[in-house]
Every structure is written in C-alpha cells, then in structure tokens.
C-alpha cells in the first residue's frame, strides 16, 4: 500500500503551499516594509522559486505554522522524489554543456545567407478573459451590473496583465478597480505581478502600487493575492480563490471567494481598517463551447468591523445575498 501512502504524503506538502501562501500574504499586508521585503523575495529571479519560495517566506516569519509540512516533505519516501517545484541541487546538469562552445546560426557549417532560425517560442501571445459579466439582484432591489475581466499579452514568462473589476448601477460606474501589472513566471504554476491599481467610482479615486502572486495551487485552486500600497501609507490586501468543479464536460460549478483588507480607514470609500469585506458564492455555467458560457449563481457578501459601520451608517446592510446571471467568455 505504499502507493497510497505516497500520495497522501504528498498532500500535506502541497497543502502547505496553499497555507503558507496565505500566511505570506497576510504578512505582506501587515505593513509596507514587509510588503517591500515580501515582494523582493517573490520577484527576484535568483530566489528559490515556486512552492518552496512560499514555504520559505512563511517559514522565516512563522516557523510554527510551516515547519511541520516542510519536515514532512523532506522525509517523503525516496528523499529527492520531489516531482515539482523546489530548487536544483548543486550538481544539476548544465544544459549548455553539450554545445562545447558552438552557437546557433553562426560559425562552422552555417551556409551563407542563412538567417538564424526563430520559432514560435519567441512569439507574444495574448488573450482576454471576461470571467464575469453579470446582472446582480439583491433582496432590496438595488440591482446592478458587475464585470470582472483579465487580459494578458506577452511572452511565456514575462507579460502584461490587465485586471478590471467593477459595478455599474443606474448607468453610473459605482465602484471599480483596474490594474496594470507586469507578470513574471517564477515557478511552474505561479507568477508574480507588479504594477499599479486605479480605483474609480462614486467615492474618491485612489491609486496604488500593486504586488502580488497568482497561480494554480495543488488540487486545481486558482488563487491570487495582491498587496497594495497607496498614498499616505494606505495599505490593502486582496485574496481570491476559485475552483472549477466539472459536473460534466459542459456543466461546471465554480465556487469563488474574495477577501479584502485595508490598513487604514477610508471613510470616503466606506472602507474600514482590517478585514473589510468577504464574498463567497457559486456559479453554475454551461460551456456552449470552451470559450463561451452563460451562468447563474448566488453570492453572499458581508462587511466586517469598521466597514460594516460605514455601510450601516449610509443606510446599507452589512450582509447581503446576491443572485447573479451572466456570461463568461474568452478569446
């Protein structure tokens, strides 16, 4: 039954990835100096990357939380049987050693007039995903339209990302967040992101520097965590996660959750210090093709602490159920 043991031994290791990821990000949020430090450790290419990077970042700060899973991974059967992530051992093979000094497209035996071959691995690719374009209904009848999209353009490991999310009610942009980020791949499934965020809407516009990570955690959880630094020492943190639960090839249930934190009260925008809002919902979509899928869903949104005070003060409710129907597509 060693096979079973093996697979369950992998689980805590990989779960640790997710746990330590969250921990790291909580740390990032707790202050701008930590943010700067944290970002360094994620974007610097020479740093150990991938799950280990998350583990080590968390391990430095909270040894108790992560030491167990790391120890577990270290004692995994077969020692180096680590099929993903990690960092190369000292004696790892040099991939260029077999060239013995030869270069592509130049030197001995290159016929005259030949320009060095280029393939598609040098091309830039792009796509735009409209994850949510939906009509939202709440019990109080404050209906609105909500959007969430993400576009990317660039090469495999370095590219531009645009993220835009917002709500439109009664023809007016109510609340929006738009980010322009440079994404850099640091591990098989993880990218760091660095850039700016612009908030616009009925409240006061805000500009932020943004630094985060986005990727696919073990067990296929899409996670993203971004820390923000704004004017006057404002800080913020956003965490979101989602999962595609395929009932059939076409019918897919997507649970999704999103958490926002702020370092300071922002009365004009109704945001309070600490955990500000949390959202959890499910959407059931039908993929007409892989690229276009109508959906329906329900979402619970709750404000916490000072944020809920602000919401109540302005006559709102600090928690609400939202029914949604919309379309997701990409091209």
């Amino acid at each position, binding site marked *: 039954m060693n096979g079973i043991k093996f697979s369950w031994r992998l689980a805590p290791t990989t779960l640790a990835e997710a746990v330590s990821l969250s921990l790291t990000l909580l740390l990032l949020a707790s202050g701008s100096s930590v943010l700067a430090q944290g970002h360094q450790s994620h974007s610097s290419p020479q740093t150990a990357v991938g799950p280990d990077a998350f583990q080590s970042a968390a391990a430095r700060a909270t040894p108790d939380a992560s030491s167990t899973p790391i120890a577990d991974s270290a004692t995994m059967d077969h020692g180096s049987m680590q099929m993903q992530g990690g960092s190369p051992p000292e004696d790892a093979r040099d991939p260029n050693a077999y060239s013995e000094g*030869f270069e592509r497209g130049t030197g001995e035996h290159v016929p005259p007039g030949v320009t060095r071959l280029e393939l598609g691995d040098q091309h830039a690719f792009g*796509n735009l995903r409209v994850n949510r374009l939906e009509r939202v209904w709440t019990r109080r009848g404050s209906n609105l339209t909500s959007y969430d999209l993400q576009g990317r353009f660039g090469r495999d490991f370095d590219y531009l990302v645009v993220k835009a999310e917002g709500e439109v009610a009664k023809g007016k942009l109510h609340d929006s967040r738009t980010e322009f980020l440079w994404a850099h791949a640091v591990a098989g499934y993880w990218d760091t992101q660095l850039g700016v965020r612009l908030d616009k809407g009925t409240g006061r516009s805000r500009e932020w520097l943004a630094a985060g990570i986005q990727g696919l955690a073990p067990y296929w959880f899409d996670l993203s965590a971004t820390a923000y630094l704004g004017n006057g020492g404002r800080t913020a943190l956003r965490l979101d996660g989602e999962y595609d639960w395929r009932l059939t090839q076409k019918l897919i249930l997507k649970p999704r959750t999103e958490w926002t934190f702020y370092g300071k009260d922002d009365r004009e925008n109704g945001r309070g210090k600490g955990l500000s809002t949390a959202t959890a919902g499910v959407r059931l979509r039908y993929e007409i093709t892989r690229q276009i899928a109508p959906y329906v869903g329900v979402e619970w949104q709750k404000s916490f602490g000072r944020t809920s005070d602000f919401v109540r003060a302005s006559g709102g409710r600090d928690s609400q159920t939202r029914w949604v129907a919309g379309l997701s597509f990409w091209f």
Partner: protein
Amino acid sequence: MQALAAGGAFGAFGHLPAWSQETLVAARTGTPPELRGPNFDLTLAETTVNFDGRTGIATTINGSLPGPTLRMREGETVTIRVTNRLRETASIHWHGIILPFQMDGVPGVSFAGIAPGETFTYRYTLEQSGTYWYHSHSGMQELTGIYGAMIVEPRDGERIRADREHVVLLSDWTGTDPMRALHKLKAQGDVFNQNRPVMRELLRDVRTSGLSAALRERDMWNAMRMSPTDLADLSSTVLSYLINGSAPGANWTAQFKRGERVRLRCINGAGNTFYDVRLPGLKLTVVQMDGQDVEPVTVDEFRFGPGQTCDVLVQPTDDVYTIYAQSMDRTGYARGTLAVRQGLSAPVPALDTVQWLTMADMMGGMDHGGGHGAQTQSHQIDSGSNHGGMNHSAKGGMNHGAMGGMDHGSMSGMNHGAHGTASNDLAKPSTTVRHARTEWGPGTDMRVDMPRTNLDDPGVGLRNNGRRVLNLADLKTIGGPLDPRGAEREMELHLTGNMERYTWSLDGLAFADSKPLRFRYGERLRVILHNDTMMTHPMHLHGMWSELESPGGEFLARLHTIPVQPAQRVSFLVTADALGRWVWHCHLMFHMDMGMFREVVVA
C-alpha cells in the same frame, strides 16, 4: 527575422478576401499522383479543400493533398526542383533521408528557405531504401497540406515480397488556422480535451470501487495539477483525421485481388496525432519501420506518431476490410477500406473507451518492486521497499507483465557517478537521472526521478485491450547496427514542458534560449531521451540514424523518429558521420514550434 516563424501561416489560411479565394482551385485529394525519378518538379501553392464539410485553404504540392508520391531508386542521384508559389518562405524536408545537410531543407539551419516565386533545386544521392515521406519545415505549412510519400526502391530488388502495395498516408487537418488553435492552447492547455475528468465519472467509480479508492485514484493527479486525460493537445474538436487526404466519409478505398498479399506503406504525416492502426479481421505483419526492414512481427494493431512510418503485410481472405486509425485521445478516427473493388465498406469499429494515464506514466519506474529502473542524482532507490501499491487505480491498465522487459542486468549501471559517463561504463545506458539545472524553472511542470526503461509497453489506451499491439521492444532491424562500435560518449536530454502554460522544451529550455548540441565528428554517441512530461513525444533527429537500444544496451532498431512515452527513458546510438548543421525535435508540430527543438552541429 526568419520566415519560418509561426506567424507566417496567418497569410496562407482563411484570411484572404472572398474574391481571391474564388480564384483558387480545389485540391485533389485521395490517392495522389505518383512521380518517378530521377527528376521531379514540385510546385507549392494554395488550394481549397473540403473534408466532410470542413472547408479551408490548404497549402499543397502540385495541387494535391497529400502531395505526389515520389518513387526513387536506391543509388540514384535525384534532382528535385521545388517552386514556391506561396506568399511566404517555404521549404521541403526529406524525412529520414541521409543526405548532405545543405539539402535537408530546414530554413534557418540548412539553407535560407525558398522565397516566394523562387525555385530551389535539391540534389542528392540515395543511400538507402524504404518508405519515407517529405514535408515542409516552414511555419505551419506541414499542417496545412505540404506533405507526401516518398518510396525508395532497393537497388537489389525488394526483399519484402508482396503482390500489391498501397501508400496509406495518415494526417490531420485543423479546421481552423493552426495559429488560432495554438493561441487557444496558450490561453488554456486543455481547451480541446474532450475527456477531462468529471463528477459523473467520480460517482461511477465511487459506486464500483468505493469512495476511498475513487478519491485515491484522483488524489495524485489533482495534487500535482496534472490531467490523467492529457492524451493529445488537439482533438476532433478542431481536427479532421485523414487517410490519403480523405476524411472518413470519403471512404478512401485500396483495392486488391483475392489471394494477393498486400503491403501497406503506412506513414504518419499528421501534425498532432498519434494513430492506433488496425484492420479488424486481419493480422498485420510488420516488416519495416522508418524505412528499415525489421524481422517480421505479427500484430493486430500498431501505434505510430507523427514522423514515423510502418510497413505491414496483410493477406486478406474476405472481400472487404476497414482500415481503422483511431486518434490516441479517442475522439476521432481516420478510416479507409481495403476491398476487392470500389464502393464496398466494412463495419467501422466504435472508438475505444478512454484509458486514463497511470501512475507509471507519471512516475515511471515507481511500481516495480525493487525499482531497478534508474536512480536519482543523489539517492539510491531503497530496493527493499515495495512500491507495488501504485497499480491500485481502477483505470490503471498498466499490468506488471508489461514491466517484464525490464533488464535487471542494468543494475550495474547504478554505480555511475554523478556524471555517469566513465568510458568503461558505456556498455549500457546510464541509469543515473541527471536533470538539467534549467528544469527547475517555470517552463517545466514536473520531473521524473525514477523513469521506466522498459520498451514493451504499447502505451496508454492500448494496454490490455485484448489485441496484440506492436511495441518498441518488438523491433529488430535486419542486419544489425550500421556501426559496430559501442557508445564512446553519452548525452542525456530531457523532454520537458508545462501543460498549463503550454510551453515545450528540452532540458527546460525552449529553442530560443538554447545552444546547439555538438556531436563530435566521427564519434559513436549514445543519446538518452528522458521524458519528464505526461505526453508521448515522437523525437526526430535529422541527418543521422537513431539506433535504438534496449535498456541492457543491445541493438534493437534503426529509426529516424523515436516515440518516447511519459516518464520513459530510452536510449539510442548515433554515428556522427554527417558534418554540418542539423536539427532534432519533437514532431508534434506545436511542440516543435513552441521550442521542443534543438540545433545539432556535427563538427
């Protein structure tokens, strides 16, 4: 900037204004015309096609898809004038042919390519015989129709006795611009996978084998973010599967007379598809592989990947048989008929059910007790432990018997140091796994530390299917190796990729970031291919034969394209007798274009 860059295909595919499409002629499909040497004239141009309703613009040779079948003779010097009437640079590569590198037809490496409106003259002397094929080596032109069969008749007459022969050229047609399909794969690696694991299957497995077994089977895959149904990048969602340029509905028919022995020269000229070929009711006697005669082996079915050729003899007793070639991912098939006259058809089998990849496909040699396969850089395999538990999965068709071919004698290879290339150790391929430093980057989604080295596995989807299926260990090229020398040096290369990002590479480095591989002129070199991915890659080395060997170092077969299964480690010997610049790549077109590609310098 080389015109071989993938973007070039945009111009040739579906983006023409309507008026200009009307001026194009329709391609001739079905059995192509046959041309005989020593002089050939080939013209590349755009034509229209319609495959069971899927229409598009093809790039074709002499207006035919496939291109004309070229017949040549061993020892003959052929002159082939190729005129490019496309709007982009083109080329023709003679797949598996031994020739001077300037005639090899790889733009940017062996020549400058053939500019629009120009003619390039290929001239070389044939030093070999057998079934081969030729195709464009520029952009996506091969996917859009530039390929054809090439038959070289032996100088001293045919050793394989047959009363009649047919070329069976299997290929695939992307119903959309190949670059669009590639864009979609870059956005979502499983966009064309029709067999993604779903809840319904889980419930079924819970019913049949219990909750814990069902979860256990899925745990590893999910933990590693790998799909057990990642069998092909492209499926019938976008592909039409063709036999001699004919979709299944066209029922391409090869005729024979009763009592005849028929030779089928099967060629896989697909861009994406591994085909599992059989003729229900007939035994197939495999007599040639990659153009080289092999000791006859009789099977029910064989799998071959893009680039490979396989000649079989059949002795029909009935009037009609279906030639059935399923795609490896079981979403479609190419189909033709072998019959005594036109207009007949035999039943077309249903597609086989999809088999999931097994733990052996992911982790290689984990499941043979004792783990004699290979060892990791710094850790001995604990030979006392029993890893037999890997096979518990309900879908895991991998039988222990298939591991029987493991040569336990290769234990001696375990004494290799970190470099494993000490000359006295070269009788057998090294079993020390040496991942490249660059395999720890974002372009690589996994590494296999304990690969399987047995060659007798027919591969996922064919295991325990009740039919005798050809495997690599069955192959024995008649006459033995071309060069009696043993390996003088070893080169280890890892096949790598990341399905989520849809990146493909060797040693974790895509072509753009790579340096050439240098083969020292005159040496006898062992190349070890170690597959760190979940897909099978048909690896094609230009210019020199790849002489496949067993895990114990015995010669098996002389090939030009070697399929390497997931988590498998295979080795072959090469005699570096062909000075010049060559290339070596995965023959799945998108893997090649994404950088699973190397330049080779023999100097």
